[in-house]
């Protein structure tokens, strides 16, 4: 029991001072491109973590290093307590990856490709056949098992990519932009799958362009920009500490200029269609709302309409990086 507890305390992924720069394609042009300037990242076992950042921020490089695709220049990465270089067989067998780019294969059916994939992880056909069948069924690909990748629709390709990442039953699932370029319906379907996998105990590392996706799914997010993690935390905490919300109230029959009515809040007052419009700037709109309404109505104000604008992770992102994520 104790050892199980200890094990769960070992982070799933632990990145320390990770640095990476790329040589230019044309070496004579000179000048390295610095991709990562020293990243620290700890993802707990069983956690759903989102790495957010604009293109070129270093998301894919970070994932590439964790999975062994890209060589690190400096720093260290361990997966479930073991080093990714000296213990690469261990660390890689614990990770399943769904890369950003969809893989193509001209020769084999998707079922066969899954058996190959399992084989690369040292799993014999007979040990994995039940699991492959179940995964294909679960992701709605069973009827297509004898098709080749090019015969699948875009959404099916994406699902196949995830099934492939799961074939060896990894503890950690890394998804690089899993919902890039797919329609809304499939996005929601994938979200459901991911939630379920998380419930089953998988650690999930997700990179995304879609902030709402991270806000909705991830327990913690890190915002990465120009090779460093600018901020990290629970989405709600980030919004609370870095974002701002507002409450708009449309009033008549009262004089809101009486300061006493609504003291303690900063607001802007504007005349509006026979009444007034008040815009309060607050940290947590839900908490402040009742106080504001109480103060206003106890003074006989007639409230026509209330609008709440909550700050989103997107605002946090823009305030930290100075640009929108899709710029």
């Amino acid at each position: 029991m104790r050892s199980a507890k200890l094990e769960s305390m070992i982070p799933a992924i632990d990145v320390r001072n990770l640095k990476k720069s790329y040589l230019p394609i044309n070496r004579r042009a000179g000048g390295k491109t610095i991709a990562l300037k020293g990243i620290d990242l700890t993802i707990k076992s069983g956690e759903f973590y989102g790495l957010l950042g604009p293109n070129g921020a270093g998301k894919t490089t970070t994932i590439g290093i964790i999975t062994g695709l890209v060589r690190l220049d400096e720093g260290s990465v361990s997966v479930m307590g073991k080093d990714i270089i000296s213990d690469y067989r261990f660390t890689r067998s614990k990770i399943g990856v769904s890369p950003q780019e969809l893989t193509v294969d001209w020769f084999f059916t998707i079922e066969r490709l899954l058996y190959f994939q399992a084989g690369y992880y040292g799993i014999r056909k007979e040990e994995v056949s039940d699991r492959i069948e179940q995964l294909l069924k679960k992701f709605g690909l069973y009827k297509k098992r004898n098709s080749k990748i090019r015969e699948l629709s875009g959404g099916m390709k994406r699902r196949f990519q995830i099934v492939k990442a799961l074939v060896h039953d990894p503890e950690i699932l890394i998804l690089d932009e899993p919902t890039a370029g797919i329609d809304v319906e499939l996005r929601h379907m994938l979200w459901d799958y991911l939630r379920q996998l998380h419930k089953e105990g998988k650690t999930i590392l997700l990179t995304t362009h879609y902030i709402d996706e991270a806000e909705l799914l991830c327990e913690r997010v890190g915002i990465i920009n120009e090779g460093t993690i600018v901020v990290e935390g629970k989405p709600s905490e980030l919004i609370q500490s870095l974002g701002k919300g507002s409450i708009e109230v449309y009033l008549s029959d009262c004089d809101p200029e009486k300061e006493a009515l609504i003291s303690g809040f900063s607001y802007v007052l504007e005349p509006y269609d026979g009444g007034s419009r008040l815009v309060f700037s607050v940290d947590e709109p839900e908490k402040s709302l009742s106080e504001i309404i109480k103060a206003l109505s106890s003074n006989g104000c007639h409230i026509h309409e209330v609008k709440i604008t909550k700050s989103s992770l997107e605002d946090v992102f823009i305030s930290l990086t100075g640009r929108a994520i899709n710029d």
Partner: protein
Amino acid sequence: MNTQKPESLKKLPVAEGGINWIGFRTLTLREIYRFLSVYRQTVIPGLVTSALYIIIFGLTLQRRISAIDGVSYTIYILPGLIMMNVITNAYNNTSSSILQMKLLQQMQDLLITPMSSMEISFSFIIGGAVRGVINGLLVLLLGILIIDMPVVHPIQTLLFLILVSWGFSGAGLILGIFAESWDNIATMVNFFITPLIFLGGVFYSIDMLPAFWRNLSMINPIYYVINGLRYSILDIGGSTVHLSFAVAVLMTILFTVIGVVLFQKGTRIKQ
């Protein structure tokens, strides 16, 4: 959505270290199935071309060219044709498979698995070597069936086929690693491999050449492997068989080591 949790797997033995034999076997078989699934492009053409050579030379030139080293012209060129098939197939298989994997993003999928660079490179080499051997054996069979070619030293013949297939599959690995487009591969084949094969004495004995060209041919390694096979099949040119064998072994070791080291370093594969 089906919410049933798929059956979990037991602990993966590969995580404990040691050689990933199952992975190695899987990738090797994948490489073999890959070319077999397109046998019309990978097995049949060599056979057809060789049959054409045999028919054309058999029907036309043989009447005008006297026997070389005591065997008829068509039989004389057959070991050369076999070697030509072995070399081009072994080499093409590995180089195109690697390039294809790079272009289709499959290489990345492979590099993140718990397979070592050594296991991956040997799987590719063996895949190409099997294609080379199959092609060589089929042309050999064609020779036995249609022109009644004798096979004097069968075991040596087989050994030689395997050795040369392996060696040139290793060369294919090196090229596949460096290649960034199909053009790169075609250039190497058209301007390097094919001339070396033709100048290696597939269609003639280098004794027929003037001294200068004969001496030049002696530095062409392919000349030795063709000679070696010619001896193994027809028992002619026995005086240089040890040298031929040594050249084939050296070439095989050299290409294999360079290929594996480049793959391990991740040249043009890992960033």
